[in-house]
């Protein structure tokens, strides 16, 4: 069985994976990860967990050619504004690492797959999320 790569990736039993946000019922700000107090409006106990959408638009990116030893390059580090709110960062895959091929605001979908074969020290495998252009 695979584990989620981050706490905000949910793998419900018998259901589809999704990304979870925490939305402030007072001001509408959406956060990744649980919290008690809203850092925008300071409301307490106003957080509600929500299911984030699996589609969004590319907000910004960088094409990474040098990373730490053992990390395969190049890859596209992408910041995506999800439809309906929430911003997440991840790899944009199946896209040429060429700025001429990457357009701001291009529609992308969130897909869930094995975490590039990476395993932890106990040999567990992980499920991660990726972005893929919707053509």
């Amino acid at each position: 069985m695979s584990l989620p790569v981050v706490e905000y990736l949910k793998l419900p039993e018998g259901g589809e994976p999704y990304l979870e946000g925490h939305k402030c019922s007072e001001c509408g700000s959406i956060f990744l990860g649980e919290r008690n107090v809203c850092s925008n409006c300071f409301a307490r106990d106003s957080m509600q967990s929500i299911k984030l959408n699996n589609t969004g638009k590319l907000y910004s990116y960088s094409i990474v050619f040098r990373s730490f030893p053992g990390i395969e390059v190049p890859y596209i580090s992408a910041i995506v504004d999800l439809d309906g709110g929430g911003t997440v960062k991840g790899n944009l895959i199946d896209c040429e690492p060429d700025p001429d091929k990457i357009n701001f605001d291009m529609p992308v979908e969130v897909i869930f797959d094995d975490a590039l074969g990476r395993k932890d020290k106990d040999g567990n495998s992980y499920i991660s999320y990726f972005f893929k252009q919707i053509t």
Partner: protein
Amino acid sequence: MSDVYVLGVDMIKFGRFPDRTVPDLGAEAALLALDDAGLNIGNMEAFYCGNLGQANAMVGQRILQEIGQTGIPVVNCSNACATGATAFREAWTSIKAGLYDVVLAVGVEQMGTGLLGGSGSGSGIPKEGLLGSGTMPAVFAEAGMEHARQYGTTFEQFAKISVKNHHHSTMNPKARYQIETPLDEVMNAEMISYPNTKLMCSVNVDGAAAAVLVSEKKAKELGMQRAVRIKASVMTSDPYQERDLVMPDVNSCTRKAASEAYEMAGLDSSDVDLVELHDCFATAEMLHYENLGLCDDGEAGRLIDEGEVELGGRIPVNVSGGLLSKGHPLGATGIANIYEVCTHLRGEAGERQVENAKIGMTHVIGLGSACGIHILEKV
């Protein structure tokens, strides 16, 4: 409240000193600043020390063990790349508060090699290259590409910033490098994180800088000839922004700090004769032209295209060579840029002197985030 003055300030030439220690580098800068002020450690009433790499290792006290243990209060500060500016500002605050008349501030750093940043593995598996990149070149590339999406800023425009700062550093003997880097060389250098090539990333170096700050009373007593007045000292943290959790924001904390600094100084950006700003990456410098009000939003690309930010231009930026070529020893940077501005206000900057400089601004950003801005005035 008394105005506060910089009476002595200096930095060591930035470089690589693997055989020396952090306190040793800090001590050298402290002695240079004390000599510049015509004072000695026995005259200091308090000492604020900035260092990041050994933040838990009492660097300030170890500096005093090398230059004189007088029993004064020592505060060790760590605030990412705003560490030096934080130490300087704490010294300023203590004089403003009327606690002391003569205070020492030192920023010092010994750097490792290679990339900074990276999304730490935490529990589970490493996230770098899986959930995008947390390396500093990538994070600041993404911040630059946000500008590109808004205003169409080009790779070439970002690269020109590096050409400019490397050119400036050829006139600064204390910079790490004194080497011209033509545009094609910058653009064809190894791509680290598009659009930042290797020559568009700040240089990892060791370094130290120090300043002696005094009250107005003390400045008058010791002589005002080379004193520099601190017109504004401001720090901010990052106000809430909706993309904070995935995109560290260096813009809103800088804008907030700049507007507070101009207000404190009773000045606006048109009064400023030179700026030393936080060019940790070429993409970052572009953002700060607008954040500091050196031009209107969307005009930053034009500013670099038309040479307004070069030595001799309307508002020279990073005539020291900046972090891109002078080097970026994290904890020292915030005092080294104060040294640069003071040197111009004193008319002692030699070949790179900004003519008739009366007002200068320094700016640093520590990601996470902390922004420090100082406005300095020729007396």
